[in-house]
């Protein structure tokens, strides 16, 4: 394709990106400068290079001017490298005869000095023009995609994603850390704004998961190792011992009845410590799988070895096995959905609301359990003193929209506080006060629910509560919890005595989100929720191909949004699986066998064990290193390590890099 002299014929295209680039960089000047560079046959500027007419310019010029190299100076390669490679290919060239210069994210968006930014763009363009001349024709690699999917987390997000995938005929591994699936939703009483019973809509889905032929459910299990890449992940799952054989236990509870502890002794996590459970227990009646487990921290036999083991006697299926050990499973999957959820804000961080100090200060989740008919009080809303409250204060935004704790709005608290206000009134007939900063009710039927509560006679006080205290100003406050608040609508400080305080806690990233992030090689936003690839256009993708997000691990959201996102994550995984193959960048390393001395330096350096040493082949001595292209991820470590310089890397050849550096350092003309 080169002209008669053998020189490359380069086309340069500088994009305005509307005013995104042209607002800071003198695009015309950069394009004119491009025309003066060696080997450049044509240099143009255009409003939007990524548009159809923009791409058309490239094909047309390749055709008319016999171009054989293309450089586009525009945005990040993450956005449009693929677009322009395709345009290059459409013009009849190998797509890798293209190079992209990022003058937006690395130029106009980070600079304000027009002259300096323009100069920098010229420098970067010059480097690219020199580099592209050295580009070689390459072929992309195609690898098959394993159709199996791993879903991490068995809350409503993970359950919905797993069922969607399984119903589409895909094999799913659902891994849950707790002993049962169900997540936070299983602890809720009713759901807003329709007030339908959370368990009634959740438990059928839980049973479907358990009985679905395409779903392998591993509860009490954690992912401990992840290897591989999109289409071909290898995942290690550690299954913690529950000291009960899951296959044998029928959930008849006779062992629990028979336990030497006649009463529960251990705070029950499912009820947030409002009730006690035994060392052998079922997390809650509808737990899935319906299998008991033993808490070795509490079981006498684990502590002293001196228990009568009445549980074992009681089990007619011989399911209890105290010597059970952790079990490691390894599975191969092509894609994964991360749905690890949230943790509620720790109210110890707002000591001025008196949680832990005054017994009748509760968190919203504790109230969810109290209003629940199968909860610790059988649905009675009573204080820790056993008394039914006559007045209840619900404090919104505890650990949300707060400069001292979490800055974000947790999105669900206004609505669940309204729901709890309604339920508490229904259960107790108490006067209920809601203390809010702003009422945020933007969902379907949400505002109507707020109106309903106003009509029901719930009080709304606008202002962030300063403190909850027990010091009384006068007799009416004696023995009460006093909520001190600035009522910003009437412009005065109020003291409102109540019998029970509910702290509407916000949602925050799980404590170990950073560990999960590292394990799966995905990213977290500054506040710690997992980061989607693009906030608008790739909301369930992550920066790692083949790993998708669903539910509150990506940010606070309510149940409808969580389910919608879980469906979207499943659909993304299905799209990937249906494509059957994935094209990989040809950026792999390769060995120039002639120069390889067989020193083996590269072999231990490779993080992907893609390099092996071939001593002989067909009984002929070889004594060379060899790279398995399917395993190579193009990190370049071996290229840098090779003492004889005989390992090369596609797209990052030495001469390509040196030309680019030389171009960058060349004094501007």
């Amino acid at each position, binding site marked *: 394709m080169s002209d008669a002299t053998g020189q490359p014929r380069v086309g340069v295209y500088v994009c305005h990106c509307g005013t995104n680039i042209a607002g800071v960089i003198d695009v015309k000047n950069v394009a004119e400068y491009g025309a003066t560079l060696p080997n450049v046959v044509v240099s143009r500027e255009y409003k939007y290079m990524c548009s159809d007419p923009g791409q058309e310019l490239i094909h047309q010029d390749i055709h008319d001017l016999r171009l054989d190299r293309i450089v586009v100076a525009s945005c990040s390669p993450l956005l449009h490298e693929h677009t322009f490679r395709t345009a290059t290919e459409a013009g009849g060239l190998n797509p890798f005869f293209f190079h992209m210069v990022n003058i937006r994210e690395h130029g106009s968006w980070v600079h304000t000095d027009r002259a300096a930014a323009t100069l920098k763009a010229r420098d970067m363009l010059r480097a690219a023009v020199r580099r592209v001349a050295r580009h070689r024709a390459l072929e992309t690699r195609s690898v098959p995609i394993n159709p199996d999917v791993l879903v991490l987390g068995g809350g409503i997000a993970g359950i919905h994603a797993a069922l969607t995938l399984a119903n589409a005929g895909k094999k799913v591994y659902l891994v849950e850390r707790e002993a049962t699936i169900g997540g936070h939703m299983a602890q809720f009483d009713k759901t807003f704004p329709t007030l339908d019973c959370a368990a009634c809509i959740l438990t059928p889905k839980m049973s479907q998961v358990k009985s679905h032929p395409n779903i392998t459910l591993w509860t009490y299990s954690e992912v401990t190792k992840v290897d591989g890449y999109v289409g071909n992940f290898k995942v290690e799952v550690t299954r913690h011992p529950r000291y009960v054989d899951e296959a044998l236990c029928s959930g008849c509870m006779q062992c629990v009845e028979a336990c030497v502890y006649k009463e529960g002794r251990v705070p029950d996590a499912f009820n947030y410590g409002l009730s006690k459970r035994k060392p052998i227990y079922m997390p809650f009646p509808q737990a899935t799988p319906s299998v008991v487990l033993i808490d070795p921290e509490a079981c006498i036999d684990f502590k002293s070895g001196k228990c009568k083991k009445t549980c074992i006697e009681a089990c007619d299926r011989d399911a209890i096995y105290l010597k059970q050990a952790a079990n490691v499973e390894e599975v191969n999957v092509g894609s994964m959905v991360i749905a690890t959820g949230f943790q509620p804000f720790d109210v110890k961080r707002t*000591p*001025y609301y008196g949680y832990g*100090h005054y017994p009748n200060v509760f968190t919203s989740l504790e109230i969810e359990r109290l209003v629940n008919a199968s909860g610790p009080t059988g649905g009675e809303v009573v204080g820790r003193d056993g008394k039914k409250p006559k007045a209840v204060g619900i404090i919104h935004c505890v650990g949300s929209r707060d400069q001292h704790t979490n800055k974000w709005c947790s999105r669900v608290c206004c609505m669940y506080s309204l729901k709890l206000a309604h339920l508490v009134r229904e259960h107790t007939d108490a006067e209920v006060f809601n203390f809010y900063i702003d009422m945020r009710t933007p969902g379907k039927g949400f505002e109507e629910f707020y109106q309903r509560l106003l009509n029901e006679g719930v009080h709304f006080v606008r202002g962030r509560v300063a403190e909850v*205290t*027990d*010091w009384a*100003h006068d007799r009416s406050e004696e023995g009460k919890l006093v909520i001190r608040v600035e009522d910003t609508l009437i412009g005065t400080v109020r003291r409102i005595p109540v019998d029970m305080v509910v702290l509407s806690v916000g949602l925050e990233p799980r404590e170990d989100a950073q560990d999960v992030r590292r394990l799966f090689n995905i990213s977290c936003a500054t506040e710690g929720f997992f980061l989607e690839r693009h906030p608008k256009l790739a909301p369930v993708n992550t920066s790692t191909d083949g790993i998708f997000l669903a539910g509150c691990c990506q940010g606070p959201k309510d149940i409808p949004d969580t389910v919608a996102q879980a469906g979207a994550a499943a659909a993304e995984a299905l799209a990937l699986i249906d494509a059957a193959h994935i094209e990989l960048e040809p950026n792999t390393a390769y060995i120039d066998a002639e120069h390889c001395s067989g020193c083996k330096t590269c072999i231990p350096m490779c993080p992907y064990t893609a390099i092996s040493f071939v001593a002989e082949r067909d009984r002929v001595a070889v004594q060379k290193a060899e790279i398995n292209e399917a395993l190579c991820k193009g990190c370049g470590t071996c290229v840098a390590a090779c003492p004889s310089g005989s390992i090369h890397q596609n797209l990052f050849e030495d001469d390509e890099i040196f030309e680019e550096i030389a171009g960058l350092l060349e004094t501007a003309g």
Partner: protein
Amino acid sequence: MSAPAQAGPPDRYVYFPGCSLKGTGVAYEESLLTMFRKLDIGVDELEDWNCCGATSYMAISEGSAFALAARNLALAHRAGARELMAPCSACYLVLMKTLDYRKRYPSVDKSVREALDRAGLPATNGVRVRHPLEILYNDIGAARIKSKVVRGWTGGRLACYYGCQAVRPYSEVDDPHQPTRMEQLLNAIGVPTVDYTLRTKCCGGSLTGTIPTVGLRLNYELLKESVRNGAEAIVTICPLCQFNLDAYQGQIRADIWKALDVPVLYLTQVLGWMLGGEWRELGLNRSISGVSVLKRWFSAPKEKEAYV
């Protein structure tokens, strides 16, 4: 001044009394000096100190307030000190604020530098401000204090009252919302304390003088709640808090609550007593309220000596 970490507390501190410890809070100074003497730690009064810049200064002329505070810190620096102990909460706060604002706002730093320049003082901003409670807790430690205790506690239970300025907004002295260091130190040497919810609530500040209806009300709440929580005396670390709570009980008795008579002590008086200090050298003779209780607890000398 600060000692190497392994060598225990420094053997001397430079001390900024401020106006209170020479006036209404003289019992604080007396007990503070006695306590440190009993702990074998020297205390040197800062030479040529001036007003810290607190109260109305900060409200009327912020620039002057910062300059006044900075002068005291500069004097300490010139004297070779790296730390300055400020027992009065108002002094402590204004000194801390000056350090902080000079770091945070170049304009404040600039005007302070100019003022110090004119006074011929070094413009550095490197002297650390220390509060005695934090020194007792961090530098000296409960174990060392306990090892020097010579008395058993014969008094009743105490409500620890921290006030606002020592713990907010700077939190080096203790937790801003639930401070516990006074309780920890006292409990460690066998002095019982009660759970006192209002430990950082407003004592009324200068409102007791300017708008007595508001100030006395706040005062009354603090005193009443201490009694309700089972305390027989209040122990504090701030001279204004101590003065407000101690001095107006007569007024409250006349207006609201006849039976009120609660002693209000300094932490340094209680620790000083346990370390072997005597009635007069701890300024216990200067208390206004709850005198009969104090006489019982601290085995006061003969009647005539107990008067100022």
